[in-house]
């Protein structure tokens, strides 16, 4: 099998070996570097992933200076390696870059909501009040845009609105899966990877909100639910949820 086949099938340890072999033969092929970086992230070896993530990040920034590159992935890697200050700084920089328009691209169709939501999670988890307030302020600014042009933006708009207290978790579920109960929403993930990804995001940030209200048991339950969706849900939240579960144990 090809390295890419292993990777797409979730056989990440085999993918790592295969990508390393590919890189030996084609050291300049950025796809193999990216594949190796992602495979290491998938198995949780963030120390090994970091240099490859940096390589891909530099490649993407050189091609598109206003792209976020792999900065969010780097932030997540540092977070999982317990370098939380660096993780928060990188994520906050992404938010600031969206606001000053030095970054014009984001891994969502909600104007960069992903960066604010991750900063919200990280700052809430560490009790970092300054960054927590910054994240909320960032999300409020995005929300003004959503209200002005409601047809222009997509999920995770609803999760932003949930964080800001405008809608309930059930509203988010319905927006993502057309279902208002989690059991039914989970069934909806079977037919669509996009739904599975968005449900993972919804669950993850609902978990963050439960943490903020001191419902740590509820938060852990949500993190477990994200993890159980498997690697095919949104990858950053999956890594972070897996990291949470490792901490529980």
């Amino acid at each position, binding site marked *: 099998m*090809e390295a*890419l*086949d292993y*990777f*797409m099938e979730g056989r990440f340890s085999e993918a790592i070996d295969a990508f390393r072999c590919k890189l030996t*033969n084609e050291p300049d*092929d*950025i*796809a*193999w*570097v*990216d*594949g190796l970086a*992602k495979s290491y992230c998938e198995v949780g070896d963030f120390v090994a992933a970091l240099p490859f993530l940096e390589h*891909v990040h530099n*490649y*993407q920034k050189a091609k*598109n200076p*206003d*792209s*976020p590159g792999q900065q*969010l*992935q780097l932030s997540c890697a540092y977070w999982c390696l317990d370098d939380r200050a660096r993780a928060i700084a990188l994520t906050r920089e992404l938010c600031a870059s969206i606001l000053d328009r030095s970054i*014009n*691209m*984001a*891994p*969502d*169709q909600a*104007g960069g909501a*992903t960066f604010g939501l991750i900063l919200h999670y990280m700052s809430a988890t560490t009790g970092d009040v300054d960054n927590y307030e910054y994240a909320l302020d960032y999300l409020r600014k995005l929300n003004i845009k959503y209200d002005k*042009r409601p*047809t*222009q*933006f*997509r999920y995770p708009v609803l999760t932003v609105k949930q964080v800001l207290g405008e809608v309930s978790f059930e509203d988010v579920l319905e927006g993502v899966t057309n279902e208002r109960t989690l059991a039914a929403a989970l069934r909806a993930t079977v037919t*669509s*990877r*996009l739904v599975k*990804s*968005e449900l993972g*995001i919804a669950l993850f940030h609902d978990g963050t909100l439960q943490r903020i209200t001191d419902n740590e048991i509820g938060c852990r339950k949500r993190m477990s639910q994200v993890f159980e969706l498997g690697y*095919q849900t*949104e*990858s*950053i939240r999956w890594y972070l949820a897996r990291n949470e579960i490792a901490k529980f144990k």
Partner: protein
Amino acid sequence: MITVKTNSAERLPGKSTNTYDVNGNIDANYDASKLGVNIAPGLPNAGTIVKPMRGLVADGLNYAGDTFTGKANPIADSGRLAGNYIDGWKATAAQGPEAFAKRLGNVSGSAAFEVGSMALPATKLSKLSTLSKMGGTAERLVAREVVVAETTGPRLIGSYTPSANLKFGTTLFGDEAHAPASRMLTDELTSRGVPLGSIIDRTGPGLRGVDMSIDPIYAKKLGFEHIEIKPNSESGLSTMNRQIRKWDYDPRSVRPVTYDANGNIRDGFNF
């Protein structure tokens, strides 16, 4: 319209540019035009996907003329076989869509989508497998490609209802069209295994630059690194070409997606 030249007299001059890795896998980096293959403007994706198969055909033709390898070389044989299938399907094409449907079995509007979903088998095709298996795969690929080109035109990705007060060709119409288009494309990309975090979006109103990009490993799989969404018009095409030059992108790395006045989102241009 797709034109596929298969006569050995029209074979590629010189050796192919294919490379082989240690496992004998082919990386078919063919320029379609050099193969004598004109990919319909609406079929950039299908063209990319069947490129390995076409590379195989061309390789077969090249090797067939090589007395040192000749028929003993499985690439040559499968190349000939794939070429024969192309001719066969072109002949069926001349008999009309019904004949196509009959030959293919159950052709529907989803035939175009099937081309996309066959990306993995297309990759596997490049492996030196058994002759019969390769021939069969080549036949399905060619058949679907021709059916798509002959009966459906550029692949319809989806549709939305444009606001009645917006005029096609204006910035506001374009801003509105980009939102559903990016949603449909994200859905399609995730269904093909690209995770959300690897799809970088720039379709928001007023943002400059290419509309969507995907991470390199998935670009390798899908055959494109960027997606640009444009109105399905001559000016849309010329603007896109100008922008690609300005951004210094390889044109082959950009998948063009268009919208029309009726809210149809399609792969490629067809005006």
